[in-house]
């Protein structure tokens, strides 16, 4: 167990490497109830979110999900979010646990001029994720929802093992899978039903440690590592989440527009190391021996069998032609520039 943003979270249930491999090859079950759920509802909810977030949420069809961000007026990222349009007038905004209070406060003030209500519903939801290639076949017998018809980044209300839930085909592992939002009082029953149904297929409970290596292999950013208030989505290579052509103004638009037109001063890259030692958060990166950036996340990759890392490199480092190295506690270790993601599932 570990303390995480005010929650007691399972870091691992057994071996995090075994949990990681189970998610890649069978399925893993995650308790993500720490995530923040903020309900934005009302006739003006879509317009309020268009103004508050970088994405074009009023253009989202009911039953679909979108990855988006909330930025400060200076363009700095306050959080990365998944937004579900649950109905014509209901949007469920999922925030990182550590940022929920900030996101809720910002949404409340940014929605003030719109016909929309903003509610922090975090305590109304438990979140259980089932992720991995076997997730759909484990879940299907437990629900009458047509999972075959449910696309990636879609969701629907339905019962799972008798528990009413919002079931969404989303996740943070690079695998197919589902996230199930239910009442906290039903969470144990849902967890146990999924664990029992998935056991024969190789499903295991998986903790935060496996979640981190899974998302890193999948090249997904983690707020606080790859994303933060001192950068815009463009530095992270996620400028696509900023929809300048949506109707109306949005918070951060002038700063983000200026940033989108300028050449970025740094770039998020992937690195692989031929080493037993792991490049970790904060370690320096050198190009031809000259300081060129910093590692944001690093771990031994169970899938690649070698350490992987994401790092920000300054744009003038000209990393493509340089010999890259990482300083690992006094040792200089060669690193290879690698396209992100490190891992993508076969579809």
């Amino acid at each position, binding site marked *: 167990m570990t303390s995480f943003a005010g929650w007691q979270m399972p*870091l*691992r249930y057994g*071996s*995090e*490497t075994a949990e990681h491999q189970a998610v890649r090859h069978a399925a893993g079950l995650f308790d993500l109830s720490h995530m923040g759920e903020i309900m934005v509802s009302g006739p003006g909810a879509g317009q309020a979110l268009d103004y508050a977030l970088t994405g074009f949420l009023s253009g989202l069809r009911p039953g679909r999900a979108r990855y988006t961000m909330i930025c400060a007026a200076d363009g700095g990222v306050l959080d990365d979010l998944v937004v579900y349009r649950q109905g014509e007038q209901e949007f469920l905004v999922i925030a990182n646990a550590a940022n929920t209070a900030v996101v809720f406060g910002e949404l409340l003030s940014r929605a003030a001029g719109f016909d929309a209500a903003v509610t922090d519903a975090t305590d109304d939801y438990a979140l259980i994720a089932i992720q991995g290639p076997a997730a759909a076949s484990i879940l299907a017998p437990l629900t009458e929802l047509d999972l075959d018809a449910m696309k990636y980044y879609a969701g629907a209300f339905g019962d799972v093992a008798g528990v009413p839930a919002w079931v969404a085909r989303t996740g943070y592992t690079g695998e197919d899978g589902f996230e199930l939002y239910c009442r906290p009082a039903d969470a144990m029953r849902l967890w146990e039903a999924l664990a029992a149904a998935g056991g024969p297929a190789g499903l295991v409970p998986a903790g935060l*440690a496996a979640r*981190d*290596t899974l998302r890193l292999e999948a090249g997904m950013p983690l707020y606080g590592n790859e994303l933060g208030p001192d950068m815009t989505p463009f530095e992270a290579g996620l400028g696509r989440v900023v929809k300048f052509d949506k109707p109306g103004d949005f918070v951060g638009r002038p700063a983000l527009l200026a940033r989108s037109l300028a050449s970025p001063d740094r770039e998020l890259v992937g690195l692989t190391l031929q080493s*037993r*030692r*792991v490049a*970790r958060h904060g370690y320096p990166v050198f190009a031809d021996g000259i300081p060129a950036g910093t590692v944001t996340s690093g*771990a*031994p990759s169970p899938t690649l069998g070698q350490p992987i890392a994401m790092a920000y490199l300054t744009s003038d480092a000209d990393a493509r032609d340089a010999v890259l190295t990482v300083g690992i*506690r006094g040792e200089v270790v060669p690193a290879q520039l690698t396209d992100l993601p490190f891992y993508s599932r076969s579809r």
Partner: protein
Amino acid sequence: MSIPAELRYTTEHEWVSVEGTLASVGITEYAAQQLGDVVYVSLPSVGTAVTAGEPCGEVESVKSVSDLYSPVDGEVTEVNTELEDDPSLVNAEPYTAGWMFRVRVAQDGNGDAALPPDMLSAAEYEELTKSAG
């Protein structure tokens, strides 16, 4: 969780097994569980002089890297080269196949191995792990 009665322990979660003046060293099952899956162990070279309480290597796990402290004074006579190929032995068998290095320590007045006075018994170490939660 296993804490073998015949071993001595340190507050840095190492165990020591003494035969004559040869001390075998590893990390405890508690330490291995806290670290998670060990992926790399950096050990001192044979012939290195090590000092009790001083770092002499590193244990790298999926989530973190930690210093490995020598529990005793002396000279390293042997290291567990099996850990190069299979560092997971530290998790699987921390007190046996997952041992890390051996140190020749000085003799005390009785001809026994001279160990630092602050080493813990199994019972004392168990108390330590319980108070650490």
